[in-house]
């Protein structure tokens, strides 16, 4: 039997299932005891290595982590650092790093 509600509350607020389930997983990870907690959090770390190509040669790569991405994208209002970057954040950070298409 499905629940009577048409959509869950998080769906009504505009979240996708991916956002919701990642949020839940992150909260569980934050409630772990210490050796397991840092292990679980480091497992989820993501970073991007970006290098600009000039004359067919890659320049020195710069390392972008989700933290720097969200900071560079929105210097005025820093959103939560644990949040994964949105495509718009990545695009903004790439533009700030001087990578144009």
């Amino acid at each position: 039997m499905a629940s009577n509600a048409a959509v869950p509350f998080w769906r009504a607020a505009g979240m996708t299932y991916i956002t919701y389930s990642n949020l839940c997983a992150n909260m569980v990870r934050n409630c772990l005891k210490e050796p397991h907690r840092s292990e679980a959090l480091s497992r989820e770390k993501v970073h991007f290595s970006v290098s600009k190509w000039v004359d067919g040669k890659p320049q020195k790569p710069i390392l972008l982590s989700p933290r720097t991405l969200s900071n560079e994208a929105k210097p005025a209002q820093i959103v939560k650092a644990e949040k994964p970057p949105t495509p718009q954040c990545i695009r903004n950070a790439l533009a700030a790093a001087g990578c144009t298409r």
Partner: protein
Amino acid sequence: MFRHATTRLLGRSLRRRPFSSDVPAAQVADEAFVQAWRNTVPNLEPPKTPLSFMQTRPPTPSTIPSKLKVNFVLPYNSELWNKEVDMVIVPATTGQMGILPGHVATIAELQPGLLSVHEENSVKKYFVSGGFAFVHGNSIADIIAIEAVPIDQLDASAVQKGLAEFTQKLSSATTDLERAEAQIGVNVHSALNSALAG
């Protein structure tokens, strides 16, 4: 003279000698694809597709088996694989759901909660953050979770702190999204709390 002719003919047609290239795995490959390949490149063997590497699910037995086979996987690990257990209880969005051998085929969305695996006399408890459980008719259950941890790895004080933090956030939330996020936090931490309580 022709007394044995029919048996010989029949016997020959029935017993087909396999070619060396006729590996059994090739027989489960997509027939349409293999046919199309043979039409296009007749002198090259068709490549093996994922289908030919996959094992077919065993058929549903006529009598209910005594054990349930469980595959419990996470994105980075498989906690249980082809493990024969007596029962699993999963936290479905519609309530706790016990899965025994011979359970009717079902798909259930999981919510943050306690998942327990009952095997003989021992019970193993995990906390899952969410995911899906697929129960097949042949007493096989696939459980997929985003994050699952044994219950003894949870920190009770962090749970209490998180619960207080998100309850406070819920009352001060202004937008719909913030409110939903705080509500999720309250739900997850209450589930963690009740899982730790018993």
